[in-house]
């Protein structure tokens, strides 16, 4: 079978319309009665880098497990790559690379043997190309040098990389990465981000879950936010961040006087921190506000509006901090 010809002409039709992932009223109540996911309507557009956000315990991993056919939804439906899951899980899963709740490895096997084992578990994986594909996946995550070491000797970051390599054993149409940068140092995080960008530019849809908002903001085109098992919002990242207003920031050696003038000019919630004065920008033209500061003799070093982050958007939507566990 020719791997490339089998899926290179990327079909657009159903995914583009319905989304690579589409859930309707997806609900999971665990046997203990705990409602982990509550009526989730999620749509992940084809070709997007989709950030799936929420504090720890907000139902992200439960959702991912349902999408991967590992657990059965209590009610509702989920379609992945146009097929219903978990019913058609075996049809769609070969097209999906997944990293779920951290890597899991056979400690007594070498990194390479771990990948060989996971590849052998996929009935669609051609054993004739197995060692080549394993070597390529190791190369891609920078583990070639450590491939012969036993996995139990790996650091957390190396394990994470090996888990990623397992997700990249075959060309995939969808990558599901649950907290992919856990345990990685800043350098490793940068590498993951550039890997995600590279995969996305090849046309792979990437679904990344994280409780770290700023990490997501740098790579994602779309995002959804979960809290307490419910979907708070979803859409293109630019739209989400635009929902929360930016912040006016004035840097000045005369903060007291600046604060007084800003209040006069209609700036709300003025806060002074050292030489920084921040507040909610007024409706009027900011050029006039600046002119007023200068007219009042305030020496201005910096004046501008800081773009709202996803975290601001999240706080604006839920009225609570992002680190709260559900």
């Amino acid at each position, binding site marked *: 079978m020719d791997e490339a010809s089998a899926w290179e002409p990327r079909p657009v039709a159903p995914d583009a319309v319905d989304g690579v992932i589409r859930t309707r009223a997806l609900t999971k109540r665990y046997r203990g009665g705990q409602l982990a996911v509550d009526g989730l309507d999620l749509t992940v557009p084809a070709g997007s880098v989709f950030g799936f956000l929420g504090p720890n315990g907000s139902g992200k991993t439960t959702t991912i497990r349902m999408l*991967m*056919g590992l657990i059965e939804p209590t009610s509702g439906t989920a379609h992945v790559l146009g097929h219903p899951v978990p019913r*058609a*899980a075996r049809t769609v899963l070969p097209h999906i690379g997944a990293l779920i709740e*951290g890597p899991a490895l056979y400690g007594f096997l070498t990194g390479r043997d771990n990948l060989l084992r996971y590849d*052998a578990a996929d*009935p669609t994986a051609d054993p004739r190309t197995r060692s080549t594909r394993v070597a390529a996946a190791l190369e891609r995550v920078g583990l070639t040098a450590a491939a012969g070491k036993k996995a139990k000797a790996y650091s957390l970051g190396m394990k994470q990389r090996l888990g990623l390599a397992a997700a990249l054993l075959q060309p995939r149409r969808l990558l599901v990465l649950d907290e992919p940068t856990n345990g990685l140092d800043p350098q490793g995080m940068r590498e993951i981000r550039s890997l995600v960008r590279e995969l996305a530019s090849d046309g792979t849809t990437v679904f990344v879950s994280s409780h770290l908002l700023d990490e997501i903001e740098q790579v994602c085109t779309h995002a959804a936010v979960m809290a307490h098992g419910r979907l708070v919002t979803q859409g293109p990242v630019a739209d989400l961040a635009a929902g929360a207003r930016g912040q006016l920031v004035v840097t000045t050696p005369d903060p007291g006087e600046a604060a007084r003038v800003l209040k006069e000019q209609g700036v709300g919630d003025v806060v002074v921190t050292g030489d920084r004065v921040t507040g909610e920008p007024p409706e009027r033209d900011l050029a006039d506000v600046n002119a007023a500061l200068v007219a009042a003799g305030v020496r201005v070093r910096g004046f501008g509006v800081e773009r709202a982050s996803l975290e601001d958007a999240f706080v604006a939507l839920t009225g609570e901090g992002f680190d709260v566990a559900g």
Partner: protein
Amino acid sequence: MSRAETAAPAAGPACPSRTPHRLWTFGLLRSELATTFRRWRTLALLGVLAAVPVLVGVAVRIETRDGSSVAGGGEGPAFIAQITNNGLFLVFTALAATLPFFLPMAVGVVAGDAIAGEANAGTLRYLLVAPAGRTRLLLTKYATAVAFCLAATLVVALSALVVGALLFPLGDLTTISGTQIGFAEGLWRALLIALVVAASLVGIAALGLFVSTLTNSGIAAMATTVGLLISVQIVDQIPQLHAVQPYLFSHYWLSFADLMREPVYWDGLLKNLQLQALYAAVFGSAAWARFTAKDITV
């Protein structure tokens, strides 16, 4: 019923299917066998089993150094008194000595760990999203456990054969019925007995696999399986419980000795094999029902 196994509709236009070659499915079995037999724990179990015939052989050798026969006549495992005449009997003695506990314990450890151990390590979820398929994975696990039954039995038999050949004379042997058979025929019977002993273990392998689907702790599954083994052995010894004894998987285990009769006495042997098949069917189905409907939350 099974979410992962129900036949998927033909791949729609959204999913250009990679059609697997039918034989590729055995790649998982090969990987499973390699993974199991490369475990340090598996090798340690086989090492212990290989040591039993050495212990028995050396003990018999030391005790009979002055030319006396093994004391106690009817005491000890079957055939022990005959070892000094013919080293081949060490094979039968070693199998009789390990079958009640060492062999099934080793099988219980391997079978009990099969699913629960993978769940415990988290590797189960990656095998399932690969996707290994739940039925396929379970069948592979059972096939591997059965392969271990055979490997463990052969390790005992071969170790006993080597030790027996080194410490004692070899030659024609006398059957339980008193007839003489040649050494080649004796070897053939020894192999047959090893196969029957291996088959005697497929029941507890199925039981261990079922227990393994109930928990996410490999240790708990192993301990439960070995605990069940001990309980069954005790119940089998209590005369007042004779009504249930024919249904205990260990009840006909020692019937393998009937292969050393002339002619072979098949009654107990067949009952044993039927009982093992029954256990494999019942607990295999239970394991399948449980595993294919289970939420994998680890």
